[in-house]
């Protein structure tokens, strides 16, 4: 339980097999802690197979102030299956606890038992999981509830918070399920409360909620869904694909209540095509997919660019290339998001860095798509899509309902010109159903009237229009396109970052500062158009610039170097796992030392 500014910071890792209820236990734990007013960040890992066995890990970090990432070292490891847990005992920090089945069924050879792997500096707690479960529910099935009761007792956490979540969770099942689980919980709570405590301490108080704010816990994908609904999404067309499927599913359940329509299409090409069709007809329209789906959408996104049709595409990245590693995280679809179209097909690309950012970016994406008449790609990644954070929803809906520069802005003589060249390069857009605005949108290069044209000057002028109008997005109201954290002024090592990895970057930055390194970090949320000025200014301040990202060659690094013509230091990992704070920190130290030398 690392102390940060004297407040709580404890990370639990529950490890078991797919049948053990590991993920469910983690879910109850994080909801209970959030209910008590703590901040939570949590991420589960489960096997790619549909069913059967395989390692599940649920990691839940509980803090007083919202944390930025999970920690490499957990404070508590709970094993529901020692064979999966043993390789992870090493990740428990010193003075951290390891909780395991005290009376395993199978007698293991000396040395193979989990206790043989616990370091002297770690605190071992044997717990009769099976026995307590069986006594309470006459089945071993509630072992995952038993460990929760034990944790509550051990760390002095209010048991009622757990009982409430358990009751809510089994609401739709027979009453007996809740009762027996609660019995198991209570029995284990007693054991935990009364067991001889080693050195693990107990939890600090959660920070009191700010007045009027109610924190809630959601995943990145959940926040995207909320952002879509608050921004007035009209139509959503989607095709299932991990890790974006839950956006489709949640919207299917919720959007119809808000007057929107959701359709599962026959494929991703159809999904983006219908989205573009709906966008053309004036709807706020979106789709969601992952890398393979985005690849299929490349051609139709080009029509969105050429026809200047608003649309929003949420892309949750997973391990690639190709089908890759569908249940692992990665940041390797940036190239395709920015460059994956025929011709000069610039569009807006945004990447939030945390769950709260998902909400804001989703809503703002619709504003931008409409205002600049363009496709907007929002890049997520599995780690961000699926991880839980406590967030405080805004008191007031922060998104503008209608930013379309409509037919009423048309001021010209003669026929209505859909693609009139204007000062801000955005043309008045008539929507079907509006009289006097009839026109044909085409993927062919076209004149201001929208008629096909292949005159050289026209193509040059229209190419310029399509590019230049996007620059205004860099100053889009109430949106953070990039942001600097940490030390001001001359910096030893600056860290640039994007997407989910920025959490680890911030934690590394804090650690580096603690070691006396002048360190600063900048998150880049708008990846196209790139905030070149701000990045250049940041780089000017830094003696060395590090860019950690979860891909092999450094895709944002290429983008920034390409735009600014400047070198930077890359830190690339293609492992399918989130970046480690320690890896970043090691690199920061190395760069700081190189500077000192």
């Amino acid at each position, binding site marked *: 339980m690392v102390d940060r500014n004297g407040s709580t910071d404890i990370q639990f890792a529950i490890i078991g097999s797919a049948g053990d209820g590991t993920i469910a236990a983690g879910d109850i734990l994080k909801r209970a802690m959030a209910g008590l007013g703590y901040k939570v960040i949590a991420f589960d890992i489960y096997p790619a197979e549909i069913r059967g066995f395989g390692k599940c890990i649920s990691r839940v970090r509980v803090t007083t102030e919202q944390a930025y990432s999970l920690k490499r070292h957990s404070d508590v490891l709970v094993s529901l299956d020692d064979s999966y847990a043993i390789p992870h005992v090493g990740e428990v920090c010193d003075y951290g606890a390891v909780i395991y089945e005290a009376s395993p069924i199978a007698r293991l050879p000396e040395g193979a038992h989990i206790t043989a792997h616990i370091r002297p500096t770690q605190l071992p707690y044997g717990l009769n999981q099976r026995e307590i479960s069986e006594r309470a529910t006459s089945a071993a099935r509630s072992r995952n509830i038993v460990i929760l009761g034990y944790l509550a007792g051990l760390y002095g956490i209010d048991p009622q918070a757990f009982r409430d979540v358990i009751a809510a969770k089994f609401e739709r099942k027979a009453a007996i399920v809740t009762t027996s689980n609660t019995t198991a919980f209570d029995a284990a709570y007693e054991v935990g409360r009364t067991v001889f405590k080693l050195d693990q301490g107990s939890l600090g108080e959660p920070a009191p909620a700010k007045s009027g704010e109610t924190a809630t816990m959601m995943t990145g994908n959940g926040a995207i869904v909320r952002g879509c*609904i*608050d*921004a*007035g*999404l*009209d*139509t959503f*067309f989607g095709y299932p694909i991990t890790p974006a499927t839950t956006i489709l599913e949640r919207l299917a*359940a919720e959007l*119809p*209540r*808000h*007057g929107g*329509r959701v*359709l599962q*299409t*026959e*494929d991703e*090409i*159809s*999904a983006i*095509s*219908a*989205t*573009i*069709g*709906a*966008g*053309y*007809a*004036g*709807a*706020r*329209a979106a789709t969601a997919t992952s890398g393979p789906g985005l690849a299929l959408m490349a*051609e*139709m996104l080009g*029509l969105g660019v050429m026809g200047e049709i608003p649309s929003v595409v949420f892309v949750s990245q997973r391990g690639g290339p190709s089908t890759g590693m569908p249940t692992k995280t990665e940041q390797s679809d940036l190239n395709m998001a920015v460059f994956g179209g025929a011709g000069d097909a610039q569009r807006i690309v945004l990447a939030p860095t945390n769950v709260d950012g998902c909400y804001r970016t989703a809503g703002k994406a619709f504003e931008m798509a409409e205002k600049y008449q363009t496709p907007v790609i929002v890049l997520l990644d599995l780690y961000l899509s699926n991880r839980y954070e406590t967030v405080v929803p805004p008191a007031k*809906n*922060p*998104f*503008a*309902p*209608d930013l379309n520069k*409509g037919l009423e802005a048309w001021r010209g003589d003669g026929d209505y010109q859909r693609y009139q060249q204007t000062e801000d390069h955005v043309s008045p857009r008539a*929507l*079907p*159903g*509006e*009289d*006097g*605005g*009839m*026109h*044909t*949108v*085409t*993927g*062919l290069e076209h004149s201001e009237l929208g*008629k*096909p044209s292949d005159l050289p000057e026209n193509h040059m002028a229209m190419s310029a229009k399509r590019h230049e109008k996007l620059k205004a997005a860099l100053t889009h109201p109430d949106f953070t396109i990039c942001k600097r954290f940490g030390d001001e002024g001359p910096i030893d090592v600056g860290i640039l970052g994007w997407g989910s990895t920025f959490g680890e970057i911030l934690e590394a930055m804090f650690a580096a500062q603690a070691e006396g390194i002048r360190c600063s970090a900048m998150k880049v949320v708008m990846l196209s158009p790139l905030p070149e000025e701000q990045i250049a200014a940041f780089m000017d301040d830094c003696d060395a610039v590090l860019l950690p990202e979860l891909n092999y060659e450094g895709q944002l690094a290429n983008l920034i170097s390409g735009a600014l013509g400047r070198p930077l230091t890359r830190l690339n990992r293609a492992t399918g796992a989130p970046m480690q704070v320690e890896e970043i920190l090691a690199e920061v130290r190395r760069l700081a030392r190189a500077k000192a030398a």
Partner: protein
Amino acid sequence: MTEPLKPVYLEDKLKQVRGDGHLRYRSRSLPTWCPGCGYFSVAEGVTVALNRLQVPLKDAVVVSGIGCASRFPFFMDTYGLHTLHGRTLPVATGVKVANEALTVIAVGGDGDAFAIGGGHIPHAARRNVDITYMVFDNGVYGLTKGQTSPTSVYGFVTPSTPYESHDQPLNPLMMLLSYGASWVGQAYAGHQHHLSDMIAEAIAHRGFSYLHILSPCVTFDKTEMTYANLDIRVRDLPADHDPSDRLAAMKHAAATGHPALGLYFREERPTLGDGFADVATRAGRKTKTGAARAGGKKKTAKSK
């Protein structure tokens, strides 16, 4: 069915109907099609049909793919959307889902429809999207200069099949019938009056209507799907054909030697829009809570 009528070209038409308002659905862009192309008849047919149905210009959206056929929206004075090769139907679906009030007409060539676009047709049909889909079948790729298409005859010699095509042609009518399209018909560019009637009927149908239009490409097919051949080969569907009998329709569709013109099949069933309405009810639709609704969306007021 009425007697064959020679195709009418816009230039002649212009002279013929000055001022009678018939052409108000046509844009001032003259079609860029080759003189004699069957597509002129289709354009005429759509004009007649829209006049007859009095669809407001502002409420009609013509969606197309890529090809000579797909140039069609440029020649109309309605809203138009010239999309990508093969994507006609999903884009048209998006338009309709966004705004039920629009009359959405999707058009494309045989390649656009049954080659690159073939995967979308079953789904537009089974969902019963309330749009009209007209495929201008000339049995060849016109715009790319004469290659074989999915409806080309076996043995067709083209620049991409110089030693004869060895692919069996597809049977679009059987396919659409098997997909569960709720309205399936066939017309011929050489029979102008009948063609216009069929287009009007197709547009009037509530649900997904599919009209297959045999239409010669006078530039790239001088031997197979020509006016001369088709004039002789086409037949009327027998008068006693029951358009609610899908299997009987299949039988007629299978007789490709003598393509039968007319209404093959029609049924009334809930549309995709009806489905959304049902979902909204089941979900317990609230009034829109999003800012978008709270603030009142201008465009919504206007277009829906």
